[in-house]
């Protein structure tokens, strides 16, 4: 392992992650000692509209993948409409490779609770929900504990800190469906229905949870809010780039020496991140990587100096997504990996629309056949065409995400496919895997 150089180390900007290594920061007492629940005192003193303006000024963009300006989203909530407003926090982190929200909720759950209070106050919501992935039992337990502690201390409930503002915060565990990370499917699931994406419009800002104006924000987005309130918009903008402000938690996994979360200003490069992670594992050379989870187009070694912000990654032909960077080396097979991802997407497809439901069924089988050594060159054209028929034709982004690694690997690594087809590469799957259930 190589130590990162000093100038690269300086690029670390621990803001959201700053308490993660403090022992017991998940407990309210420790959290309070570490600047906790200071921001809400400040926030509850100002007019909610000023808070929305502050977030607009900070340039905070959603951390859930799409990067939508958060202040703008809050501003869409119609005020004085006589309807209840809701804040829903999307903690259904499920994108393959993404691992930023669960550690945050495990090690610093109160920052999310505090952010939720401020955001709810800003959008005039008296009820907020955290929809957390069902499998993340540990994080959910910490979060529930934090909510209980916050109630006990008067940060939640009636008349918070004497401000007259009431807020109830509910932690709701999902039942383990990737689709429920899609905001409208999440809302359906939260309402007790089958988690399937809704037709838009109406958008959640107008008719979201229980057909009322609703803000759906990612965990990272909401957890950023207390820091912006305390530090101010200018401080926030001092990190990151002009259009992608603030720090970002980059989740590195795969062939690096120290996989984990690295919080840096937006715009850092993969080369620097790999250095922060102690370099590539010995004997491994970078071959391909995901900039923001498996649903984002793959990048290759040639993109190692791409600035990792919304604009930079887009310019390279991909999407920043959730900054879940899975690093693969020359010892990894892109065909095999794509198959593994496809099995995931196939398993997680909600079944609502034809392209995603049937297309993944088909592609998974084609991959199994190729990996068992029975592929044909024609299969590659069919795969490409099927992926094209899914991408942009599905009801929601899940189908797009499934088609993406297929298109990427066919684009960059066609020869790896031909290896299986022409018999140069040993089959990775046995004949047995071709038989059987869907």
């Amino acid at each position, binding site marked *: 392992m190589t130590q990162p150089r000093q100038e690269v180390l300086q690029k670390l900007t621990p803001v959201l992650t700053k308490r993660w290594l403090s022992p017991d920061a998940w407990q309210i007492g420790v959290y309070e000692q570490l600047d906790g629940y200071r921001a809400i005192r400040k926030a509850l003193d100002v007019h909610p509209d000023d808070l929305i303006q502050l977030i607009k000024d900070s340039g905070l963009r959603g951390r859930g993948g799409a990067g939508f300006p958060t202040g703008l989203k809050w501003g869409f909530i119609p005020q004085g409409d006589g309807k209840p407003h809701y804040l829903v926090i999307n903690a259904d982190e499920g994108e393959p490779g993404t691992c930023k929200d669960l550690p945050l909720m495990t090690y610093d759950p109160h920052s999310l609770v505090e952010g939720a209070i401020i955001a709810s106050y800003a959008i005039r919501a008296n009820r907020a929900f955290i929809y957390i992935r069902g499998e993340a039992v540990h994080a959910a337990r910490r979060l529930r504990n934090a909510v209980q502690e916050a109630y006990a201390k008067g940060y939640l409930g009636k008349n918070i800190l004497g401000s007259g503002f009431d807020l109830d915060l509910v932690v709701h565990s999902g039942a383990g*469906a990737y*689709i429920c990370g899609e905001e409208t499917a999440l809302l359906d699931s939260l309402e007790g229905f*089958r988690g*399937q994406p809704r*037709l838009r419009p109406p958008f959640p800002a107008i008719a979201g949870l229980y057909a009322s104006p609703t803000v759906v924000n990612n965990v990272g987005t909401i957890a950023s809010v207390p820091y912006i309130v305390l530090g101010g918009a200018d401080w926030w903008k001092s990190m990151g780039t002009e259009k992608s402000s603030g720090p970002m938690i980059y989740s590195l996994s795969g062939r690096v020496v120290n996989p984990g979360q690295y919080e840096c200003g937006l715009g850092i490069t993969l080369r620097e991140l790999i250095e922060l992670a102690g370099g590539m594992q010995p004997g491994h050379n970078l071959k391909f990587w995901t900039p923001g989870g498996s649903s984002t187009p793959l990048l290759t070694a040639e993109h190692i100096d791409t600035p990792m912000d919304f604009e930079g990654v887009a310019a390279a032909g991909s999407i920043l997504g959730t900054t879940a960077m899975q690093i693969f080396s020359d010892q990894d097979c892109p065909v095999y990996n794509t198959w593994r991802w496809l099995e995931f997407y*196939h*398993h*997680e*497809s*909600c*079944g*609502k*629309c*034809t*392209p995603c*439901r*049937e*297309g*993944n*069924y*088909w592609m998974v*089988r*084609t991959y199994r*056949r190729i990996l068992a050594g029975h592929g044909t060159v024609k299969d590659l054209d*069919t795969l490409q*065409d*099927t992926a*094209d*028929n899914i991408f*942009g*034709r*599905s*009801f929601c982004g899940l189908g797009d995400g499934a088609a993406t690694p297929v298109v990427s690997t066919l684009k960059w690594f066609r020869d790896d496919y031909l290896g299986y087809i022409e018999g140069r590469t040993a089959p990775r799957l046995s004949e047995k895997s071709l038989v059987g259930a*869907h």
Partner: protein
Amino acid sequence: MTDVQKRADQVSLIIDGVEVVAEKGELVIRVAERMGIAIPRFCDHPLLAPAGACRQCLVEVEGQRKPVASCTQTVAEGMVVKTQLSSPVAAKAQAGVMELLLINHPLDCPTCDKGGECPLQNQAMSTGRADSRFKEEKREYEKPIHISSQVLLDRERCVLCQRCTRFSEEIAGDKFIDLMDRSSGEQINVYRDDFFGGAGTGDGQVGEGEGDVAFNSYFSGNTIQICPVGALTGEQYRFRARPFDLVSTPSACEHCASGCSQRTDHRRGKVLRRLAGDDPAVNEEWNCDKGRWGFRYATATDRILTPQIRDTKTGELREASWSEALLAAAEGLKAAKERGVGVLTGGRLTVEDAYAYAKFARTVLGTNDVDFRARPLRATGSPVTTTEEADFLAAAVAGITEVTYEQVENAPSVVLAGLEPEEESPILFLRLRKGHIRRKLRVTAVSAYLSRGLEKIGAALVAAVPGDEAHILASDAAVAEALGAPGALLIVGERLATVPGALSAAADLAARTGAKLAWVPRRAGDRGAIDAGCLPNLLPGGRPVTDDAARAALSLAWKVDAGVVPGTPGRDTDRIIAAAADGTLGALLVGGVDPADLADPTLAENALDTVPFLVSLEMRQSAVTRRADVVLPIAPAVEKAGTYMDWEGRLRSFGAVLKSTAMTDGRVLEAIAALLDVSLNTGDVNAVRRELGGLPGSTLPSPVRPSVAAARAAQPAENQAVLATWHQLIDLGSLLDGDQVLAGTARPPVARIGKDLAESLGLADGDLVTVGTDRGSITLPAAITDLPPRVVWLPTNSPGSTVRRSLGVTAGAVVTLTAGVPGPILAEEAAR
């Protein structure tokens, strides 16, 4: 984009290079359709909310990165849309989706019922590839599964468009089917697990396991009709025919007074299926399962095809020629005329046939003793001299067509009394539900309890002990308040006749509040029979028999002497039965009446036995034909032309579906009349329609509405209760005879009791309870329901619960209750 004239609520857009004006909010797929551009689709249905699930209708919209589903995209000013006709992107997207839809489809078109009329098949031809590139194994399921006794599901054929689940949830309110599982294993099914599970049907057929809840919706057949593939099929039609061998005829439903438009498909003289017709003003595109599947009575084994007369020597019925039978009928009626002949017509007649009876009674028999009402006309024990309902029908129903389905849907508020819409007028129920869901229609129901049907239309209950309805209509503030808004409607059912003063109070309430009043009977022929004159107090055209000018005008039109048509009101059903039973009447002429439907079946059968001469015009063997002196077979609806009048007063004309030698009632009556030297002129429906159209109009003001004092409910003593009862849609009705598959979807008969009775009798849900009168008793499992104190509800005519025959009473009567069963034999029967 300014060449085209448009209103402020319209936009103009370009589809395939053609500028078009559309309403704001209109969907692109509909606008294209209006222009003649057929965009392929599966999940889209104009009466269901957009889903965007199948993705078959993708089009290119300028400025949009991805193809857009035209079934969810609303139009916008200046929008430029390119369909598959002008956009290679849209064409490719549609072809791609079609290929994906077909990879897991079994392509078993040669053995699939839908083959030949299948949107998937048709659109695969227009949009699909000639060959599949898919080499892998297809998804397989056990096939088919019964999701009800009537509906089968072949899951591997399903394209998961969700039309069926959306219909069931949005339109019918019966969410018995839903998507289950996910991804490529996603399927439609009934609720299967322990949590949602119910009793199941016990045949192990529904779904995959025990504890399944069957798809027992009264509207389940519509899902089969709107299924764009062959995934849902009906037990009656499955594997029976190919669509291209069928002959389709527009028809009208003969069951209830909802007036559904239908399509009847036959092949080689046999009806194979019926479908809901497309009539936006009435049934939209839906019908109920009774209307869809209840047509087998016409081919039942006991159908009468040859006239019969009673042999004077043996006393048995024997087959006879038409001329012999008609002569026997004519002579018998002529001989009885002096003592009097009563005419009972039932509620199943077309307007034309009802008119024939009305005219026959007046001109041939010289009597006003004619009544179509084959049901209780008054409360049990009320004197037969009361004429409240007949007076009400004359004043508030005859000739009046004020309320329509459209008004129901758009009304701000509707009050229901004596009517359980889902059971007694299912299409009215669907329209009430549409108003409730889409337009926030406020429904108030005066009823014994809040049934599931009433819940589905969001009704607020004004709880009424049977017998108290009149008092509530006369004095309840909430009911009057609900009718205060302009456009509010008061809709009453025929059952109100059994509450003294209720119809008077309803008419008075409507007049007082300005609400419009609608009367909804149960049978298809009821409303038409009123206007045709099948009532003792009304002549055809709704004129009172006491109106000298009307009688004179009618006599002129009928070319009969003045004085032939009697000027005093005749006997009604109850009085005709009573007069026949006590030997007063010389003969009865009965058309399509089941004595079991009358207030007292035993008395009615006694009357049929006693009357010296009985002529029966019937389709099938019945309690009447068995007692008749002359039986004359008549045509079922499918073998004749005619017209029903629905509860709105809307005419529902239909032609004959099948060629047949069977005659209409009008034709038979005309032949009898001819033998008695009267020219009835009712043999041809067109002649009747012309005659009806040419009848002189009434110049008199409407008859005065009745003003009978409102009664109060009976006071039951210890171990007694007041009886509430109404018909279930699918029950023992004679037009549903022998159809086990359809009967399997009926609501299980239960006796509903309140908590008070359950406690005092020590009963839990499902325990047997016996409801009795001095006549007999009914034992059913108890269902503890939120009823007023001391009220018990029974289905009127369901298996194990024939209220009129077993108890001899009707709603509002006092009955005794006992826990358990009266004796071992009944106990065994009840347990079965």
